[in-house]
């Protein structure tokens, strides 16, 4: 057994949330080639090199998974944003029989005053047993603005590991939208060093779990900068025997005067065997801050369901409508219509 995705602060072992255990054999020793990558929207404003860069993480998923990317990656991208661009760059990682295992290292540097958007989409054919272990490292320098969308549509047989590590400098703004629909196990470690004064970090996630899917999200934001701002919003729904662990940490460090941090997590339970485990942490060693978190879980309200059904929708449709309503605000971040439609189509499929 390997203990991975540990929280920055431990609580009682018996609460079963400090980490998640996986079998050693869930991490393959050998990685094969992965060549089915489609990059759309390349431009001169963004330099993309296929080279491996050094990996230095504050947290990460654990030594084994981090080392795998360090030593056995089969896709490497060093991305340097040199000016402002409105056009988004899309990386489609398409998993199939020949390309079933992706271990990638993506290193993005956004230089001062630049802006860019990236989409990373991981999609596999339906019954493929795919493996994904990736690290996305972002350094957002002063006044830069980076928008990243991550779409996980891997099959339910897949293991999906993702590490995100951000450094956010003065007045930089980093926004993530994560859609986690796929994977037998989807395990994410997200860390932001919200370093600069007036820097900002928004993280919006929607997830759906079905069958025996396990979703383990460990989101950590450390606020160092004065007047820095962090907002974490997580909306999800679970059916069948799906299980979700949400671990969210907002950590106000001494000196982060007038910083603000908010965390909001909501889990809709669509079956009586689905399980929602949450640990929304607020850590604070600075007086002059505003921190808040809220977490909720439960069935979709009977009243709302009844109202919608009274307009002629059957139960499943009504449920879908409610889930979509809760996801809507986050879905609006996806400006690319094709991509948005793909996500909507998948919500429909999963909730059928």
């Amino acid at each position, binding site marked *: 057994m390997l203990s991975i995705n540990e929280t920055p602060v431990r609580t009682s072992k018996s609460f079963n949330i400090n980490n998640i255990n996986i079998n050693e054999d869930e991490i393959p020793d050998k990685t094969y080639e992965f060549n089915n990558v489609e990059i759309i929207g390349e431009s001169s404003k963004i330099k993309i090199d296929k080279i491996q860069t050094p990996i230095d993480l504050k947290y990460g998923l654990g030594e084994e998974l981090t080392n795998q990317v360090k030593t056995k990656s089969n896709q490497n991208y060093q991305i340097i944003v040199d000016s402002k661009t409105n056009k988004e760059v899309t990386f489609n990682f398409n998993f199939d029989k020949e390309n079933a295992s992706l271990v990638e290292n993506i290193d993005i540097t956004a230089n001062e005053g630049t802006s860019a958007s990236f989409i990373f989409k991981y999609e596999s054919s339906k019954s493929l047993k795919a493996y994904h272990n990736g690290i996305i490292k972002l350094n957002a320098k002063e006044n830069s603005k980076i928008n990243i969308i991550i779409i996980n549509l891997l099959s339910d047989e897949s293991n999906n590991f993702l590490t995100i590590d951000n450094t956010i400098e003065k007045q930089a703004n980093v926004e993530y939208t994560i859609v986690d629909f796929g994977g037998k196990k989807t395990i994410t470690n997200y860390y932001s060093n919200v370093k600069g004064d007036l820097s900002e970090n928004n993280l919006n996630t929607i997830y759906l779990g079905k069958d025996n899917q396990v979703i383990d999200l460990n989101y950590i934001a450390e606020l160092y900068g004065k007047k820095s701002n962090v907002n974490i919003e997580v909306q999800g729904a679970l059916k069948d025997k799906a299980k979700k662990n949400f671990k969210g940490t907002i950590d106000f460090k001494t000196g982060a005067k007038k910083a603000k941090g908010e965390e909001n997590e909501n889990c809709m339970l669509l079956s009586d065997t689905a399980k929602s485990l949450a640990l929304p*942490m607020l850590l*604070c060693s600075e*007086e002059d801050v505003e921190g808040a978190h809220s977490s909720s879980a439960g069935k979709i309200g009977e009243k709302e369901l009844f109202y919608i059904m009274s307009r002629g929708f059957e139960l499943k449709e009504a449920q879908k409508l409610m889930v979509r309503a809760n996801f809507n605000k986050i879905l609006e971040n996806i400006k690319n219509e094709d991509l948005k439609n793909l996500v909507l189509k998948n919500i429909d499929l999963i909730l059928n």
Partner: protein
Amino acid sequence: MAKTQVEEINRNVYDIVDKDNYDFKIEKGITKEIVEEISKQKNDPEWMREFRLKALEVYNKLEMPTWGPDLSELNMDEIATYVRPKTKLNNSWDDVPEDIKNTFDRLGIPEAEKKSLAGVGAQYDSEVVYHSMKEDLKKQGVIYTDMETAIREYPDLVKQYFMKCVPVNDHKFVALHGAVWSGGSFVYVPKNVKLDFPLQSYFRLNSPESGQFEHTLIIVEEGASLHFIEGCSAPKYSKINLHAGCVELIVKDNAYLRYSTIENWSKNMMNLNTKKAMIGKNAQVDWVTGSFGSKISMLYPLSQLNGEGAKTEYTGISFAGEGQNLDTGFKAIHNAPNTSSVVNAKSISKNGGKCTYRSLIKISPKAKGSKSSVSCESLMLDDISVSDTIPVNDIQTDEVEFSHEAKIGKISDKTIFYLMSRGLSEEDAKAMIVRGFAYPISKELPVEYAVEMNNLINLELEGTIG
């Protein structure tokens, strides 16, 4: 604006040290011989002697907690686990030795008894030195006595429940408690008997480099009702003292128990306490807790909602000043349908103190139709203090309403200005806001305790509200 000095609690009353004038003090450390000796000194029945030795084995096997405050300063080789004061159990204040009586007089115990209590118990170091209860309650079959007497006089009742609710393998310090426990209160409220006034036990640890391990067992039978209050304090010594008490509450169908605590241990105390309630059908347990003292506290009362419709509420405040690390919170396990839990936790950190709210709300698959709502608020009074919120919410079925909210921050400048525009100085304004912040907890306490709590919060603050 200049920083307000919200003064440390004036502990004078609590800090007066009596001479360490014991009748018997066991040697320091924790070994089989020591546990045997304690058992002998206490004239344990054979089953209890065996129980202690088994608990010691468990203690030796279990590891220290891998989370929470740093306990490395606690060296069990430096702690005497049993100190017997120079007196027997008394039923009249007049018989309590002068020096011990003075201590409790200073703490206002006998006065409280006269005014508003149905019964009082007082423990000094390892033994209960005084116990009394109103006559009419005795006639109704209410039992309120020390644990040792209970073992002698009600062996069946004690055997049935003693450390069944909290098993010795729960954690290391419960196992330690099982091995060396001494003193504490036993309460039995028969079916449908409702006590109009509270019972109160007060625990005082006077002896340096020692531990207090009192055991409280309360059984509230069907349809009965009780309010139990415990208070604790100790003078400050330079070396570590240990408190590892255990509270077991059995609250049967349709019964009600309110358990109030004002904890004001001195700042050399490691307070590693365990409390748990088993709650029957449509029964209710309310916890009201004020934590002010101790160097380190780890305390998370647990309400296990076993009967359909069972309810629990937790209302707690922690106030951590210099050198204090108060890791407190609550656990609720919903094990039956339509159960409910409500949590209202507050904390104040100042002068480098650390408050942590740590919790578990677990709604098991059996608990359909259950509700839980949690609200935490933390106040930071300066930028050298720490305040953490570490709640775990484990929801295992869909037909539930669960919500958790937490807020952290300082007193708003706008609010201070508003109060200053009404003639209050900045210090007064902040003090008033802090008192208001604590009010939801103090209002749940009996008047004398609310006053004591307010004193604890603002004895040193300028001015008081009428």
